[in-house]
């Protein structure tokens, strides 16, 4: 393999599809009998701002802390999105969907030797629902429909709902909703922010800021025979360094994802010792207009700008150089809720005939009296956001619109995003699961959701949003989601540009890890094992 590649030009390498490397798709199967022992060295791109999963949303925490904790439920290995129990041995929903009862595994031990009870689950959820003084909760609205939590006995937890919530299972399976020790929380509610003590497969050893994080196998882990690894070591490094470290075999894995160029470079270094995985990502790039600022209060202007984006062409080309990938609507392309590519063509800006799209865009601008439109496009100073910005500016140039790129520091970006201090911005949205409620919230009225950055008021969208959120019947819900998207594209308060692609490269020694459309799950490493080095 390595011999052959020398004959290929660099350009050919860049253009080469990922399939060359025998990409494993989502439905992976385990290779051989799991082996015990070894320390998994992997990279994480950023430093954790806290140790507390309840108070953060960044993978920088998840990729280090997940192996130390358990959750009520989890996604089944190699079978996303099927749900299985983690701490819960079994569970059931009442027919009216208003009561959920969980039966916990007996003899689950914390790393300090104490036994986990239903009270620990209740205390952990109570902390996320109503955080005490000095504690925050990063996803508080997700718990909005939970009315009460009861603990009839030490192994039973009952969640009483205020209303039917079609996406409540996402909350129980969420990797963020880790279970802490109730006793520790009583003593100091913010204890988990600086300390690690859970029931997960690995106990905490040390964290050296900016350098590494070490975990060691927890012998008292409640799942028999697991984990397989003796320990793990998460090393902090910039993405460019990861590429060299992975291809130079200094580390064995990185779980967030690479750009296609980086992936190919690593595979050139690893040859047969590398494995690649690819999937669309629960993360999409958007163009947000500030609907409060003229001329973006004019639907014709917004729609014209959306029409100008050649999403199909952009997808083909940008997916070769960046983490931008598939064309999609407002729910993840490829998920059960998504329209097919053919169906997408009904939306403005998704038609295949770009000349027609651009002509229509120019007509709309003329009609709105904005032929010489020029505005500031705010953006972050990171990849692939800058790539998206360059792409959008070039696309708009082709309908005679001039966008001035303004890249600001992260803190300013969030401040402006929240306060409406922008005309238009390259925005992105990370969703926690494929559930439509989780992502469509980005597109509803500003008084309904803090994440609705376009600052629009659209009661019709709100109505469709609420209707789908309470619809238990999947087919009917999917229809409602489609209607929501039609309306949202027609109004174009903010529009998707492209969805991200997740490209993961592992050293072949790493086995038992599951690829999924989000980098937040399957990270407790309980099932991961290391194959011996090849001779």
């Amino acid at each position, binding site marked *: 393999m390595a011999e052959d590649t020398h004959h290929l030009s660099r350009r050919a390498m860049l253009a080469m599809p990922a399939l060359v490397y025998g990409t494993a798709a989502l439905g992976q199967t385990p290779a051989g009998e799991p082996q015990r022992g070894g320390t998994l060295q992997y990279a994480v791109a950023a*430093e*954790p*701002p*806290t140790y507390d999963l309840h*108070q*953060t*949303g*960044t*993978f920088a925490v998840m990729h280090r802390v997940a192996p130390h904790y358990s959750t009520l439920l989890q996604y089944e290995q190699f079978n996303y999105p099927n749900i299985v129990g983690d701490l819960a041995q079994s569970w059931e929903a009442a027919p009216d969907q208003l009561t959920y009862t969980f039966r916990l595994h007996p003899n689950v031990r914390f790393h300090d030797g104490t036994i986990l009870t239903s009270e620990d689950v209740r205390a952990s959820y109570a902390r996320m629902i109503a*955080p005490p*003084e*000095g504690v*925050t*909760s*990063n*996803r*508080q*609205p*997700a718990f909005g429909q939970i009315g009460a939590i009861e603990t009839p006995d030490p192994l039973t937890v009952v969640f009483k709902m205020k209303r039917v919530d079609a996406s409540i299972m996402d909350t129980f399976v969420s990797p963020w909703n880790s279970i802490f020790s109730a006793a520790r929380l009583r003593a100091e509610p913010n204890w988990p*922010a*600086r300390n690690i003590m859970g029931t997960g497969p690995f106990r905490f050893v040390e964290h*050296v*800021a*900016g*350098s*590494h994080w070490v975990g060691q196998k927890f012998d008292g882990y409640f799942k028999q025979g697991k984990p397989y690894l003796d320990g793990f070591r998460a*090393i*902090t*490094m*910039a993405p*460019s*360094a*990861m590429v*060299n*470290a992975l291809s*130079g075999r*200094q580390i064995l894995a990185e779980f967030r994802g690479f750009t296609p160029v980086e992936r190919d470079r690593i595979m050139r270094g690893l040859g047969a010792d590398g494995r690649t995985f690819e999937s669309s990502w629960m993360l999409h790039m958007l163009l947000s207009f500030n609907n409060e600022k003229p001329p973006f209060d004019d639907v014709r202007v917004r729609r014209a700008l959306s029409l100008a984006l050649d999403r199909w062409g952009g997808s083909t080309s940008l997916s070769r150089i960046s983490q931008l990938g598939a064309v999609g609507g407002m729910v993840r392309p490829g998920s059960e809720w998504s329209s097919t590519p053919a169906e997408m063509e009904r939306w403005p800006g998704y038609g295949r005939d770009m000349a027609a799209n651009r002509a229509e865009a120019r007509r709309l601008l003329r009609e709105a009296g904005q032929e010489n439109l020029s505005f500031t496009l705010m953006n972050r*100073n990171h990849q692939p956001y800058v790539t998206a910005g360059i792409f959008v500016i070039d696309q708009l140039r082709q309908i005679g619109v001039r966008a001035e790129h303004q890249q600001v*520091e*992260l*803190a*300013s*970006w*969030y*401040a*402006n*995003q*929240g306060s409406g*201090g922008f005309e238009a911005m390259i925005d992105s*949205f*990370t*969703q*926690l699961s494929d559930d439509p409620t989780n992502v469509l*919230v980005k597109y509803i009225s500003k008084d309904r*959701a*803090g*994440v609705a950055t376009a600052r629009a008021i659209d009661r019709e969208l709100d109505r469709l949003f609420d209707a789908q959120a309470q619809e238990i019947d999947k087919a009917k819900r999917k229809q409602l989601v489609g209607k929501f998207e039609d309306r949202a594209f027609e109004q174009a308060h903010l529009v998707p540009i492209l969805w991200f692609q997740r490209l993961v490269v592992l050293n072949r020694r790493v086995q038992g890890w599951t690829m999924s459309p989000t980098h937040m799950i399957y990270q407790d490493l309980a099932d991961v094992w290391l194959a011996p080095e090849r001779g």
Partner: protein
Amino acid sequence: MLRYLARRVALMVPTLFGVALLTFIMLRVVPGDVVEVKLRADGGYVTTEILERERARLGLDKPLPVQFVDWMTGLVTLDLGNSMWTGRPVAEEIGVRIGLTFQVALMAAFISVLIAIPLGTISALYRDTWVDYVVRIFTIAGLAVPSFWLGMLLLLLLLTVFHWSPPVTYTPFYENPLQNMAQLIWPALAVGYRYAAVVARMVRSSIIEVMREDYIRTARAKGVFERLVVARHAMRNALLPAVTVIGLEFAFLLGGLVVTEQVFNLNGIGRLFVEAVSRNDFVLIQALVMLLAAVFVTMNLIVDVLYGVLDPRVRNA
């Protein structure tokens, strides 16, 4: 001498206070704060109430003068506060990274002195000959080549020619000197070149100047072997300005590493700084600015004192 020293140290106080005040005000003018980055990044979905609560916890809701006085009180008692991003003491955040940055800076300084003094001297002795021209082109180029670009070229060279890339994790020198050097020698070279160029130019011009002074002429007229003259008289006097530039540039070097650390993925002060700035981690930025300013001011002081020691004329003035 002692009185001079005391006066100089006393003068540092208003300078540092000015830096502190200016930094504090400037940071507050920049929009955005760490709370939003912390809670709203990566799909975080929090209420305004929670944002406000977190601001209050970090003391960002207090009036600005109160915040400033709090910070000053902390500085005086050597308490730099906690990072608003990680919550860990700033001293700790800086502590784990400063060794690396300091080592790179020191190595760069060492490399540059090693190159610069002989180069500058030769260039001065053979003034306006081809040797001088070559050295001058080499040193002017040193001032021209951006160190981050030189770093990228170095990495590219190692990778394409030797199929090797430096280790990515930091190993302290006392644990494994070889591993440590394998990682840090490259950034030291990249920034050291510029540093060497600055020092070499200084050495050259000060030697030329010294050579013109009467006592050197006298010495030469007496027929003493020229090299000896240089070694005994010229070098000693020419070293003075060289020391100045080495000292002053050292402070700049620490600041200049901000860019180079990005290229080499070094977990040093520079990267910490860039990250702190991107998140508006006020407490950390303030501490880092004060640290760099303090290094700069101290270096100035040391240079001045050295002047006094090396040159009696200054001491007695």
